[in-house]
């Protein structure tokens, strides 16, 4: 029982990380039909700079931690915005080339990170509370899991509220349905593109700082390895569906954790298998729009 609960909590924590990456990917794809390969780099950069700030302050203090989280999100948003403005926008509506540009960017940035911070992982630490555990139903759950899950839920709620309650949220929802008609109402839909990139980048940067606490280190490839699972999550959840991304994040992470523990470390294969099954049964994903 306690193992089950521990796996559940760890899986949910991992799912929360997946969601922080996948939410941005899915929003960007839904609105712009661009698969952003550079999303992992937003995450990595957020993690590195967040850690750098924490180190300057006091990594074990909550102030330092909060500062690192804020810096991570801010850096992610900033880099994503620049990416959209400088690299994506000039290729307006040339989706495949936009994807290629993000591929090039991920190559270049990972190399740059390696140049700056070295290829080895930097081990990090945060406030002592994060490393302690809390007993739940007999299981000792590391506290950082709770924090990560709480943050992901907050982000989900924030994005939903933003999409439902604000004008720009409305523009984004409308744009996912019919971009041309949004422009025909006199709205510059490209601003919504930039905004979606910024939001996705912020979530990824935030996810980067949290992921570095979850795994206990930062490295130039941190983002890339999470990105692949986030891709799988977005396909399984249905490209462009935020709810789908949330549900699939949890499903995929839990499946991975349980398969790793109970089926001899086969988690990654089980996920790829699940992906294949979803594609065979429902190519549009569990919550995706079925093509007309």
């Amino acid at each position, binding site marked *: 029982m306690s193992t089950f609960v521990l796996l559940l909590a760890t899986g949910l924590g991992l799912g929360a990380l997946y969601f922080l990456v996948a939410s941005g990917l899915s929003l960007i794809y839904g609105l712009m039909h661009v698969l952003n390969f550079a999303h992992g780099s937003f995450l990595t950069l957020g993690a590195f700079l967040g850690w750098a700030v924490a180190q300057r302050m006091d990594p074990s203090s909550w102030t330092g931690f909060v500062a690192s989280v804020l810096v991570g999100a801010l850096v992610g948003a900033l880099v994503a915005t620049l990416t959209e403005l400088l690299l994506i926008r000039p290729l307006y509506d040339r989706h*495949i080339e936009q994807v290629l*540009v993000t591929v090039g960017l991920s*190559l*270049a*940035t990972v*190399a740059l990170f390696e140049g700056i911070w070295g290829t080895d992982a930097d081990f990090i630490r945060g406030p002592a509370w994060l490393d302690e555990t809390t007993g739940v139903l007999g299981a000792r759950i590391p506290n950082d899991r709770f924090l990560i899950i709480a943050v992901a839920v907050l982000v989900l709620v924030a994005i939903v509220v933003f999409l439902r309650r604000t004008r720009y949220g409305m523009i984004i929802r409308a744009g996912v349905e019919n971009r041309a008609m949004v422009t025909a109402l006199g709205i510059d839909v490209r601003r919504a593109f930039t905004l979606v990139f910024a939001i996705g980048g912020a979530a990824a940067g935030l996810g980067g700082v949290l992921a570095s606490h979850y795994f206990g280190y930062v490295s130039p490839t941190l983002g890339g390895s999470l990105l*692949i699972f986030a*891709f799988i999550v*977005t396909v399984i959840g249905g490209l462009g569906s935020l709810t789908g991304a949330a549900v699939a994040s949890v499903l995929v992470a839990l499946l991975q954790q349980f398969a790793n523990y109970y089926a001899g470390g086969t988690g990654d294969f089980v996920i790829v298998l699940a992906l294949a099954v979803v*594609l065979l049964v429902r190519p549009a994903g569990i919550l995706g729009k079925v093509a007309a």
Partner: protein
Amino acid sequence: MRRSSWTSLGLGVAVVTLLAVLPLLAIQVPGVLPGPTYTPGALQLLALCMVYATLALSYNMLLGTGGMLSFGHALYFGGGAYGLGIVLERTDLSLWPAVALTLLGALAVALVTGAVSLRVSGIPFAMVTLAFAQAGSVLVRRNPDGLTGGDEGLSLDTEHVPAALVGVVHTRNLYWLALAVVVIAYLAVLWVDRSRVGHVAAASRENELRVRSLGLQPYTAKLFVFVVGGAVASLAGVLYLLLQSGTVPRSVGADLTVTVLVMVVLGGVGSRWGAIVGGVIYTLLNQRLTLLAGSDAIESLPTVLHVPLSEPMFILGALFIAVVLFMPGGIAGAARSGFGRGRSRSGATVLEAADDQGEQRVLEPQP
């Protein structure tokens, strides 16, 4: 045959002949090759160029001919390298039967993964192929049964490999083998492109519904191209193992697929010779940039310059972005417009076709 075909055939034969006699000559290309062309160092580099040219050719077949943007092509390359390595280590087969067995295995893997991936197209296809390759990469790193050597990689077990293909002194033979492989790959790709099934795959790239309405199955044609592409890629992998005397997990990773994509886009999507040139240039650049990165000139630069310049992948990534932004047809496209031969399709339009077909109607009223 038309006259232009004879010209290109003649040109091809001339180039291959020249390359074939290269190990017997002493040509110096300062800044590109580490030594005269008869030295093992130069031949090793040239052979590596050919490995990647082969891989790029196979990938161009997927993207250029079939309009399939795969992010999992490394799986078949790595399958060839690891497959041969494992067969040589675990069986008593001699080299050539082992190669045949490896290629058959890779063919089977390509058939199964292709059959599933081609259920979707466009970006979802890219993501699914990526996931499959990732599974392969995880498998290799996990080192089941000690088969793959994990992160350390697998070194070539030379017991059953002919002595003529082992050791630095025989680099020249490996070079000739590499040249033969490129020629075989080129002919295979040419064969598919010229055959009926290749024509149907190209037609499917443009308009799937129309292909079906004519009584043909786009799925079958694309799967065929995908499988042949996978087989040629695994042939490149086989060569890689022999040339490098081993293989590392990077040869199955997503990074390699991205690298191949860079080569093909650099050369010009949809152009066979463009893919070869792209593969060669990429390999040479990578090599030279790595040397440059460690040079004193770079070391003495201020940090802000020396950090990025000491990372070859940074420069290549940036170069790639520049090509996509400013040179959509790649080298082949630039050459075509340079020679004023605008008739054939450009890489950019081929890429458009690789996009999800539904999205091109974004301005049309929704049903």
